[in-house]
């Protein structure tokens, strides 16, 4: 089947399942994208400056472009959309294409989590069936389980935030675990030196700003840091729990049981992994699906379920997941839940 026929057939399935075409802008405000993805993303974008000095870019990704359109249109309702078009990204690797065809669906303003997760997954599975790709394998992860685990652990709040924040950067995350394990982020010698300065600064006008930070802000963070209540043995235990959790890799049908024994073994609260509704639904569709807690760590905006579907030669042909924070990071005042997935057309061509 040719690529064009693939797209046509997939779009037929999208429409049948109630998704409506959304045509997003090709040109976007670069700052929007940088806000979400950070400064380092800039080198992937094709940017130029308009006459007013504003930096614009070609849309690097259709999910982000569709979300921006959704916000711009001020859509209030649950919006089931599909997109089909080109996304533009620069790469250091000359073999990579700059122009990529993207085809996918999104449920923006998703109200019912487990129903919508399932809907997206089913529509993608139906599309793949429609274009007659067989012997696929599925891998699933759920980022929210990791977040729930961290919430339940007895570590200072700043460490919880930090571990959740850097789940996406496996290498740096490993650094963090090492530091947590050895308690090596607070240097006693330096702290003694700074305590002197601390008392001096207490006498300053507390609302005075030093490089955009109030004296009070600096002192209160310093105080919080040196009072960081952690014991060495406790930390080692916690790091062990996190590492063990991230090794869970099993058929999806066994996950509930495995999590239960994990909770019991580590004396965690019984309600840590309470909500497994989406997992249970996916398990009913295909019990051979593999679940891995370590999966989905390469795209920062996922907040819940993450899945990938591979063809018989192990190439990824579709991926998707829940991303409840993306619309807010793009400027929405309230939280807007969303779930979506895209077909990788390049890997469908054989």
């Amino acid at each position, binding site marked *: 089947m040719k690529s064009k026929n693939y797209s046509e057939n997939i779009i037929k399935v999208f429409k049948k399942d109630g998704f409506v075409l959304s045509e997003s802008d090709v040109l976007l405000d670069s700052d929007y994208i*940088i*806000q979400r993805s*950070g*400064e*380092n993303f800039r*080198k992937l974008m094709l940017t130029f400056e308009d006459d007013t000095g504003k930096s614009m870019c070609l849309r690097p990704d259709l999910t982000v472009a569709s979300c921006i359109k959704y916000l711009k249109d001020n859509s209030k309702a649950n919006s089931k959309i599909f997109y089909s078009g080109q996304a533009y990204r620069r790469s*250091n690797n000359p073999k990579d294409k700059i122009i990529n065809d993207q085809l996918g669906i999104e449920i923006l303003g998703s109200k019912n989590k487990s129903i919508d997760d399932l809907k997206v997954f089913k529509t993608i599975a139906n599309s793949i069936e429609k274009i007659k790709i067989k012997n696929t394998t599925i891998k699933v992860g759920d980022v929210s389980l990791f977040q729930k685990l961290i919430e339940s652990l007895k570590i200072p709040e*700043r460490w919880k*935030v*930090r571990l959740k*924040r*850097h789940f996406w*950067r496996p290498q*740096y995350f490993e*650094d*963090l675990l090492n*530091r947590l394990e050895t308690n090596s*982020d607070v*240097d006693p010698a*330096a702290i003694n030196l*700074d305590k002197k*300065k*601390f008392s001096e*600064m207490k006498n300053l006008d507390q609302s005075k700003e*030093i*490089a*955009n*930070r109030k*004296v009070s802000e*600096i*002192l209160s*963070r*310093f105080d919080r*840091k040196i009072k960081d209540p952690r014991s060495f043995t406790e930390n080692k235990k916690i790091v062990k729990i996190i590492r063990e959790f991230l090794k869970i890799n099993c058929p999806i049908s066994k996950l509930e049981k495995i999590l239960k024994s994990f909770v019991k073994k580590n004396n965690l609260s019984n309600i840590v992994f309470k909500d497994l509704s989406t997992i249970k639904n996916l398990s009913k569709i295909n019990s051979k699906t593999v679940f891995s807690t370590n999966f989905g760590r390469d795209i920062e905006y996922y907040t819940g379920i993450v899945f990938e579907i591979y063809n018989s030669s192990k190439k990824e042909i579709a991926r998707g997941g829940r991303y409840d924070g993306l619309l807010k990071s793009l400027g929405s005042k309230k939280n807007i839940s969303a779930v979506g997935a895209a077909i990788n057309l390049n890997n469908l061509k054989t």
Partner: protein
Amino acid sequence: MKNLITIGLSSKGRLKEGSISFFKKNNLKLTSSGGERNYFAQIENFPNIKIIYLHAKEIIQRLGDGTLDIGVSGLDLLSESRINLQKKIEIKKKLDFGMANLVVAIPDDWIDVQTVADLEEVSFEFRDKKNTRLRVATKYPNLTNSFLVSKGVTQYKLVSSLGATETYPFIGSSEIITDITSSGKTLKDNNLRILKDGLILRSQACLLFSKKKAAKLQPFLNSLN
């Protein structure tokens, strides 16, 4: 002349002095036909070698486009340049002058910030509480980007600076800076402090050459110690 070799040297400062004495040590005496401000020179008894004095940054550019065959410039400037430019240039030798470090520096009074990990936390506070991103002033955007991101600092915005970067945090142009420093005195005099693990790059002067011209240049390059 067919075997003409063009060498670019820095036109001012420590790099210029160091380069001249490097050549002198190799018994190569630089002579200039014009006045003191002339940008061209020769090497005594080597009529096929032409010396050009130019900006250290430009030496890298010109090695890349083939105008220069050999150059002496800083490792910092080479590492900061675009990847495809770097691919065209090779380091023959690191020289024992022009030592300087590219570092992350913060206002000394930020006593709660000692490490890059602290900075990462503060940068997220900026985003969450002030709804802006921490601004980092620098002359080295590429090196700064890869360093910060590798250390988990992702919430920041670069402000490009052409000079006197040390003033930026105190005139409201940025919160922190990255800059090149040899003794650390300028930073200290301007109430800035280097983060404990804030070393981005250890730089020094390097003898560089254009890869494309390698064959022609080897005999001369190998004669230098």
